[in-house]
């Protein structure tokens, strides 16, 4: 007679070291094996979409910082792209380059957080995180130099960027780029070939190509599954068509691929940055002439870009007034966790944590 067992339920979160924010997973366990998982979200819901309806177009930019607070620049940019598309604005050349530079620095920073905490979830006791924070702090310094804050930048404006680059910026970013490849090699040396890491992450949490496309995954999660889809390449926004870079993809879509695709993307970002630094015009306006209470024509627009976490998009409906009639934020990480249950069922609790970590979620964006 088989022994009758019943699953036992474990709440991982809302307060848990590895949920990367206030996120709750209701997990059904059979021993240590996960048999069911239900993400419960909304603990950080601030209603940014509703708030934007009562604010002018410019006033919403600081709120976009607070979506994915680890990649605020790209959120700013995606929102500004949407409004510019709506208003048919032309962005000055220099501003376009500044935008690209900051998107790519932001991508490096965000990927370093993602990889560092993925490795921390694996149990590597903060060491990779601190090594990566060393470089991230340098990036934060550069952001602080340009826009005055280290986390919530509020730098992009409708029609450009808020301020010109200070004189110290270019030497700093050049030095950073010269150092960065050496540090990336160090990160790879630290754990990329580590047998324990390979054992823990290879073949774990596979997101197949068809599932990845079906759930509309984007960013490194989609590319790790072997889909060569990068909006920078496939639908270039800003001036990305001028840069030469590759889109790294994985083969199987397991945790290791998601980690490795991010490491490769950091290298590609360095490559884009080197080109952008070489091409940027010395002088020129950094913002188009946009009134403070900007009134775009009636209509709707969807501005989107390839953020560090994936395709972040803003869908704006305008009724011709100073405030958007409707603002919808398309959150990539919420979409990426759609297939979480497919990925984790049958794996152990320890795997659940790293699979969730490898998706790289930020709760500010999921809950909005």
């Amino acid at each position, binding site marked *: 007679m088989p022994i009758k067992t019943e699953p036992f339920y474990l709440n991982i979160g809302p307060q848990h070291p590895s949920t990367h924010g206030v996120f709750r997973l209701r997990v059904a366990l059979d021993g240590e094996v996960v048999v069911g998982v239900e993400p419960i979200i909304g603990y950080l819901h601030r209603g940014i979409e509703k708030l934007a309806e009562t604010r002018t177009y410019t006033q919403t930019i600081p709120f976009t910082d607070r979506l994915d607070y680890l990649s605020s620049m790209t959120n700013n940019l995606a929102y500004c792209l949407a409004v510019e598309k709506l208003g048919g604005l032309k962005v000055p050349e220099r501003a376009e380059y500044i935008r690209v530079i900051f998107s790519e620095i932001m991508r490096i920073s965000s990927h370093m957080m993602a990889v560092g905490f993925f490795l921390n979830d694996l149990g590597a006791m903060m060491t990779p995180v601190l090594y990566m*924070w060393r470089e991230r702090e340098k990036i934060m*310094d550069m952001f602080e130099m340009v826009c*005055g804050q280290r986390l919530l930048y*509020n730098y992009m404006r409708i029609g450009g960027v808020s*301020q010109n680059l*200070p004189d110290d910026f270019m030497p700093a970013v050049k030095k950073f780029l010269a150092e960065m490849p050496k540090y990336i090699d160090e990160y790879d040396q630290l*754990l990329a*070939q580590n047998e*324990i890491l390979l*054992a823990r992450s290879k073949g774990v949490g596979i997101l197949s190509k068809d599932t990845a496309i079906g759930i509309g995954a984007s960013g490194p999660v989609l590319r790790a599954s072997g889909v060569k889809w990068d909006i920078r390449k496939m639908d270039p926004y800003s001036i990305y068509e001028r840069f030469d870079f590759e889109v790294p993809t994985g083969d199987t879509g397991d945790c290791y691929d998601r980690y490795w695709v991010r490491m490769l993307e950091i290298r590609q970002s360095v490559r884009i940055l080197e080109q952008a630094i070489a091409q940027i015009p010395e002088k020129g306006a950094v913002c188009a002439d946009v009134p403070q209470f900007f009134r775009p024509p009636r209509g709707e627009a969807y501005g989107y870009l390839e953020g560090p976490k994936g395709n972040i998009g803003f869908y704006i409906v305008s009724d011709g007034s100073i405030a958007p009639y409707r603002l919808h934020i398309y959150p990539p990480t919420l979409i990426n966790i759609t297939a979480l249950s497919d990925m984790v069922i049958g794996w152990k609790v320890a795997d659940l944590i790293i699979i969730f970590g490898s998706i790289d979620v930020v709760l500010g964006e999921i809950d909005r």
Partner: protein
Amino acid sequence: MKFERYGIGIAKGMALTFRHLFRSPITIQYPDEKLVTSRRIRGNELVWFPEKCTGCATCAKSCPQGNIVISTHRGEGSKFEVDIFEIDSGRCIFCGLCVESCPYDALAMGLSYECAKYRRGDLILSKEKLAVSANHQPSAYYRPQFEDKLPKQSLLLYNQAEGGQKLKFLPLSKRKRGSGA
């Protein structure tokens, strides 16, 4: 775990951490050592220039939080006198939009970043607290005219030989106690 590579990956990682043992720490002993912030820092306060302010309330209109309280009355001639100018720094998100929108450069972001208070009421910055003074100076955020007066930001990117911040670990005896204020 297959030791196909006989643990070479583990050995490499261990060698890297061992190398780091001989590098100097990257952390700063915060209240004792402080880095110089950016010239454009958006600190946790705002600086108001009463003589430049015309009381037009553009800042209040541009605030996403609706956080700036300003009330005026008509003084001598056509000039407006500001009666109340209040910003609740507990609700302020320090986005700097008010500074950007001010047509007369009468408002600037502050330099301070240690503004913790024991009571919420203390966070409300009144006219007197906002007004510019010797130890309440503006930062160069959106105000490039102040940029030259401020010290250069210390970047972690540069080491000491390259003109960066001196990042030496101070022994206990040389540290100043309670210098953070």
